[in-house]
C-alpha cells in the first residue's frame, strides 16, 4: 500500500503513470515473481488512468475518436504480449524492462530541458474546441501496436511512446496527446490484465492494497501538485528510475529472474 501511495503521488505530480516504478519495486524489494508484479501493476495503471482521464474527458481535451482508433492496435499488442509473456524467459523481459526504464528517464530529462528552454505560454497555446488535423494514421497505429505490447509485457502504461507519436507524428496538440494517451491506457491495460487474471497471476493480497495506495496517492498528489515544485519531483523520479534499472541489472547479472 505504501509503494502504491508513493508511486501514485509522485506519478500524478510529475505527470507520469506509476507502472514503471511499481513493477521493479515489487520485484526487487518485495521479491514478487515477475508475472505477478506485472499483473498487480497493470491493475494500478488502470486505476490512475481511469481517475485521471475522467477529469480530462470532462474538460474536452481527450480525442475519443483518435483514442478508439489507436486502441485497435494497442489492444492487439497488449493481448498478444500478455499471452506470449507466459512463454518468454523472465530474463528477457527484465532486459526489456531495463531498456524502457532508461528510455523513460531519458524522455523525462528531455522534457525538463524542453520545459525550461521555452516559455509556458507556448506549450498551452491550444485551447479545447480549436480544430487540428490528425495525419499519419498508419504510423500512429504501428507505434500504438508497440506501445500496447510493451504495456502488456511490462505492466506499464506506455505514455512515453504514445505521447510523442501523437504529438510529433500525428499532429495532435500536446495537451490532447497527453490526455488521449492516458484515456487509452485504461483499455490497453484492462485487455492484458484480463489475460493475467484468467491465468491466475492477479494476486488479491498484492493488487488490493496497491490499488488503494495508488488511488489515494494520486488524489493527494493532484491536490499538492500546484503547490510544490514539480521540477524536484521529476528529478527524484528520474533518479529513482536510473537506480531501479541499475538494481534490475544487478539482479540480472547475479542470476536473478530465472
Amino acid at each position, binding site marked *: 500500500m505504501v509503494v502504491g501511495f508513493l508511486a501514485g503521488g509522485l506519478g500524478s505530480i510529475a505527470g507520469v503513470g506509476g507502472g514503471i516504478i511499481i513493477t521493479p519495486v515489487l520485484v526487487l524489494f518485495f521479491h514478487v515473481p515477475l508475472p505477478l508484479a506485472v499483473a498487480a501493476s497493470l491493475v494500478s495503471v488502470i*486505476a490512475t488512468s481511469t481517475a485521471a482521464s475522467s477529469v480530462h474527458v470532462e474538460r474536452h481535451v481527450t480525442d*475519443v475518436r483518435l483514442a478508439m482508433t489507436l486502441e485497435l492496435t494497442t*489492444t492487439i499488442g497488449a493481448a498478444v504480449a500478455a499471452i506470449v509473456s507466459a512463454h518468454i524467459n523472465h530474463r528477457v523481459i527484465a532486459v526489456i524492462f531495463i531498456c524502457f526504464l532508461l528510455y523513460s528517464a531519458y524522455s523525462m530529462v528531455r522534457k525538463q530541458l524542453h520545459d525550461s528552454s521555452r516559455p509556458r505560454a507556448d506549450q498551452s497555446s491550444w485551447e479545447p474546441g480549436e480544430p487540428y488535423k490528425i495525419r499519419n494514421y498508419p504510423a500512429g497505429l504501428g507505434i500504438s501496436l508497440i506501445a500496447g505490447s510493451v504495456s502488456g509485457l511490462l505492466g506499464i502504461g506506455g505514455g512515453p511512446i504514445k505521447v510523442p507519436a501523437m504529438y510529433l507524428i500525428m499532429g495532435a496538440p500536446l495537451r490532447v496527446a497527453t490526455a488521449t494517451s492516458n484515456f487509452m491506457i485504461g483499455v490497453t491495460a484492462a485487455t492484458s490484465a484480463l489475460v493475467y487474471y484468467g491465468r491466475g497471476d492477479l494476486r488479491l493480497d498484492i493488487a488490493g492494497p496497491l490499488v488503494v495506495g495508488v488511488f489515494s496517492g494520486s488524489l493527494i498528489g493532484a491536490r499538492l501538485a500546484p503547490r510544490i515544485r514539480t521540477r524536484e519531483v521529476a528529478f527524484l523520479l528520474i533518479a529513482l528510475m536510473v537506480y531501479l534499472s541499475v538494481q534490475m541489472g544487478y539482479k540480472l547479472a547475479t542470476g536473478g529472474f530465472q
Partner: protein
Amino acid sequence: MIDSNQRDRIVAGVLRWGAYGSFGIVCAGLLVGVFNQNAGNSVVRIGLLLLIATPVSRIVTLLVIFLLDRDKKYALISFTVLLIVVLSSLYGMASH
C-alpha cells in the same frame, strides 16, 4: 443526436463512478479482510474486477453513442476494439 459535450459528460461519468466505486469496494474488502480473510478477499476481487471492467464499459458506452449518432465508421471501430478485448480475455480464461 448526442453532441460532443453530452458525450464527454457521459463518458467521464462512467469512468468516475467506476474508479471511485471500485476504490470504495477494494477499501471495504481490505477492512473486512482484517476480521475474515476469505470474505475480505471476495470483496477485493469484486472491486478489482469492477476496476478492470470500467475501461471496457466505456468502450460499450462510446459504441452506443456512436450508434445513436449513426456514426458507422466509429461504431465499427469501437465494436472491433470491444471484440479484441473480449476475445483476449476469453483466451486468458481458457488457457488457465
